[in-house]
């Protein structure tokens, strides 16, 4: 053993303060510029196009007409409501399904958890269009479930196909892997010792979960939910194929307004409003990441 290691604290490669900063900035410059060019700029330009509209006399003027229309239009508001409902319902169900799976995977040993984990990750590799058609064949009318029920003399199910529950079931299935993985990563923070200590003083499972585990993974839950919520809010394929014609979720609604109704101005307005809701969840995520960095 050499005693040198005790004294040698890691030192910055370049010790000159004046030179260090630009190099660090250069490293992040490319992604930052890409984000500015491909994300930030389109957002600004979209917002600008919706509030700065052409007038009758070929000029441009500030106007909130499209927003006023959206928020006074029963049909648009119904679509927004169903999107919020779907997102909330998916988030709730995801937590309900994924937390037990993650807890099981974290606290059990042996071969079985490995199989359970690969099964939980499996939906990640299934493209959503294939999922949609498989869903129709299994849960759809006269699908596999109906055939099985019928063979044992039970009545058919009330199929969720073409109802708001269709996209909910599809989206929850699609988002299980990401949620499980993030929760599992968060559960890594919970040390076995703290749980053992709690059980030594007589805590039951419910108390361990409530007082020891949940406080440690609160952040992960927030991150997992904001990730899946962001994806679900603007999802397209599953609500389009499995959902009802009306009310429709914002994804299909925007696409239809843009292409079929041929009204790009309104489509951009819908996009900006969708973005407004998503940014709230985005801020949750950024806040929790910043909090983690700070500690």
């Amino acid at each position, binding site marked *: 053993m050499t005693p040198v290691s005790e004294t040698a604290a890691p030192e910055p490669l370049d010790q000159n303060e004046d030179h260090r900063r630009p190099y660090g900035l250069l490293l992040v410059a490319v992604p930052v510029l890409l984000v500015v060019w491909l994300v930030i700029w389109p957002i600004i330009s979209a917002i600008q196009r919706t509030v700065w509209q052409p007038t009758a006399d070929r000029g441009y003027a500030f106007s909130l007409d499209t927003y006023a229309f959206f928020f006074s239009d029963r*049909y648009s508001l*119904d679509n927004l409501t169903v999107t919020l409902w779907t997102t909330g319902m998916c988030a709730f169900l995801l937590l309900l399904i994924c937390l037990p799976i993650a807890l099981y995977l974290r606290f059990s040993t042996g071969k079985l958890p490995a199989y359970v984990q690969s099964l939980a990750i499996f939906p990640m590799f299934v493209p959503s269009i294939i999922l949609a058609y498989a869903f*129709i064949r299994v849960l*759809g*009318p*006269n*699908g596999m479930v109906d055939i099985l029920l019928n063979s044992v003399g039970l009545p058919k199910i009330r199929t969720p196909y*073409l*109802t708001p529950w269709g996209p909910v079931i599809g989206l929850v299935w699609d988002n299980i892997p990401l949620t499980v993985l993030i929760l599992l990563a968060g559960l890594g923070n919970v040390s076995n010792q703290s749980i053992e200590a709690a059980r030594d003083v007589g805590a039951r499972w419910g108390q361990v979960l409530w007082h020891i585990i949940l406080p440690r993974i609160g952040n992960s839950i927030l991150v997992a939910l904001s990730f899946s919520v962001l994806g679900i809010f603007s999802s397209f394929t599953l609500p*389009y*194929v499995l959902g*009802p*014609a*009306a*009310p*429709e979720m914002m994804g299909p609604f925007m696409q*239809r307004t843009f292409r*079929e*109704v*041929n*009204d790009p101005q309104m489509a951009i307005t819908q996009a900006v409003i969708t973005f407004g809701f998503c940014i709230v969840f985005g801020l949750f995520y950024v806040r929790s990441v910043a909090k983690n960095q700070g500690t």
Partner: protein
Amino acid sequence: MKRREFMFAAGATAGALMLPRSAFAVEGRIDWYTNSDSNILDFWANTVKPAFEAANSGVTINLVDAGDGAGLISIAERAMAAKQTDTDPQADFFESADPHLPSGAIEAGIYANIKEAGLSNYSKVNPLAIESDYGLPYRGSQVLLAYDSTKLSAADAPKNWDDLVAWIKANPGQFIYNRPDKGGSGGNFVRRAIHQANGLDPSLFTVDNYSEELGNETLGKAWDILADIAPALYDGGAYSSGNTQSIQLLAQGVVTMVPVWSDQVLQAIDQGVLPPDTGLVQLQDLALCGGFSRAVVIENGVNRDAALKLADFILSEEIQSAILTELGGFPGVSWDYVSPELRERFADIVPTTIPTFPGGDWEAAINDGWYRNVAPNVDRNA
């Protein structure tokens, strides 16, 4: 052959193959372009091309996929430029194009007047399908009603709109059509309701007569008709999200009747997706809308005469029957010129009229209006 000669010959052949394939038009090789789906290109490659080349020795067809409508129009624009400079347009035949595009093409004289060209089969063309002397309607497709013949006998199948509505209401949950913007089968069913609401007169709607006032008046009545039948549709007013999904619901025995495209349903029957005894019926008071693909011959192409021969050839009974049996399309010729056996087999779908509906502003108004007034089922429980 000596080694050296072989090398030389091989090099020359390889070099020739490496030249851009359409660098110059070749006498006796028809440069053919399409913007249709791959099933059409396959049909030409496997059926039309071998038959035509066997019947006309020395003439070949060079099948080129132009991608989309814009690709085809740019080739037509090249032909217009070539006409002005009296050079070779390197194109002879468009499989499916609108002769009115690009604007001024007919006046510039780049499209052959097929009516005047003296085609021996031109008189057979279905007069309902002819829109212009410069476009040759050789295949079509129309929306009709497909039904499960185990649940509904052919004698009871509705033959006009009122019977259809009565049937839908008498059999709740047994009919579904898809959202009008997601596929033409539901789209043209909605357009048929618009015709119904406006005195069965398709001529009321033209590509440039849309106004908000006229739209609200004419379409509003159609929304009433469609909202009225909504509670009797599948699941109390659900709408499938495309042509294929409607066929899937019919195939799974969920519903008894759906509107379908003729070519898609014939293909589905052919592939076993739907049983062979699937019933097909067309409304006889006014048919559901349909459309034709029109072939166009380039007037100033090097192979104009051969291309016209090809145009004549695709109207022959051989190809027209193949369009029915292999492509699942509609013949471009009148049904009298289809073999009696096929006429018998497809008797139910023979149209007496092929109404059309304009696109443009009407389309946007229908797509928006249907979603606002019919899809939400506001009157469902009222």
